[in-house]
């Protein structure tokens, strides 16, 4: 359950930026290759936010699909799982997206 400590980091950061203002929504970007389970984060968010200015805030999660580029044949393609393999058979691929783990924005006031 690393989601608990990751969610704690999110709430800590949001609280420090919000000050005494009430937080109504928090938007995150989570890449498909990050090993973070969004439903586990939603569960933890409610617990971690309780009793703070973030309590009751809506958690919005934008999931970024994983994309990779093959260095052998030059094609860009979707990665359905973390196995780095191009359809041409080459494993010489670089990950373009899917490793994001960002706090994008918040709504306060």
């Amino acid at each position, binding site marked *: 359950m*690393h989601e608990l400590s990751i969610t704690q980091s999110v709430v800590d950061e949001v609280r420090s930026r919000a000050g005494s203002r009430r937080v109504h929504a928090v938007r*995150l970007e989570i890449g498909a290759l990050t090993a973070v389970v969004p439903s586990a984060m939603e569960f933890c968010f409610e617990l971690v936010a309780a009793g703070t200015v973030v309590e*009751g805030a809506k958690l919005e999660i934008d999931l970024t699909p994983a994309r990779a580029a093959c260095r052998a044949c030059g094609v860009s393609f979707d990665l359905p799982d973390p196995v780095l393999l191009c359809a041409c058979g080459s494993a010489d691929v670089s990950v373009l997206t899917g490793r994001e783990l*960002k706090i994008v924005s918040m709504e*306060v006031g």
Partner: protein
Amino acid sequence: MCGTCGCGADEHAHEHVSLEQNVLAKNDAIARDNRAWLRKRDAIALNLMSSPGSGKTTLLERTLVALARTRPAAVIEGDQATSLDAERLRRTGAPAVQVNTGAGCHLDAALVRSALSRLDPPPGAVVFVENVGNLVCPAMFDLGEQRKVVVISVTEGTDKPLKYPYMFAAADLVLVNKIDLLPYVDFDLDLCAKHARAVNPDLTMLTLSATTGEGLPAWYDWIASV
């Protein structure tokens, strides 16, 4: 009613604040501090991760005894509970501090920072950080180590790299331990290496037995090359 959050306020009462910040920014900043702190002492840290029971502690026992002749070494020992492993490793003569994570399933950079200040490793030391036995959560947390080392053993499944791809994707080195047991188990070294390289084409793999000592010189050479 506000369309963003459903609260009673007017939507325009809310201020949109752009943050665009890495969730793990705080951990990563402390990890960078740890790395700089170690560098000042000409020391390095290696983050050892595995399932419970892969033989990390036995491997460390032998490694500490072997390194004692050439280079100072120290250990940060992470477990959910007890100080059994730190006590066991101190018997090799190397300093070891225990970090108990309680309910936590991984070490983070702040835990390692406080452990480093307690450990006070000598100049030029190799600090082995034995992470909590878990092939999932520790993969995401930079501790300030120079390299991440994943230990698996031949009593586990050949397909472990595919089942726990995030850990193997994060690794610099994979050590396959307990190769003295290969005649008795159904473990395919070549296939395991193929699986590991499928999620991480750049990684180095070494095979060894912490019990018999087979393959250990290559591991010691790898440490010296970091």
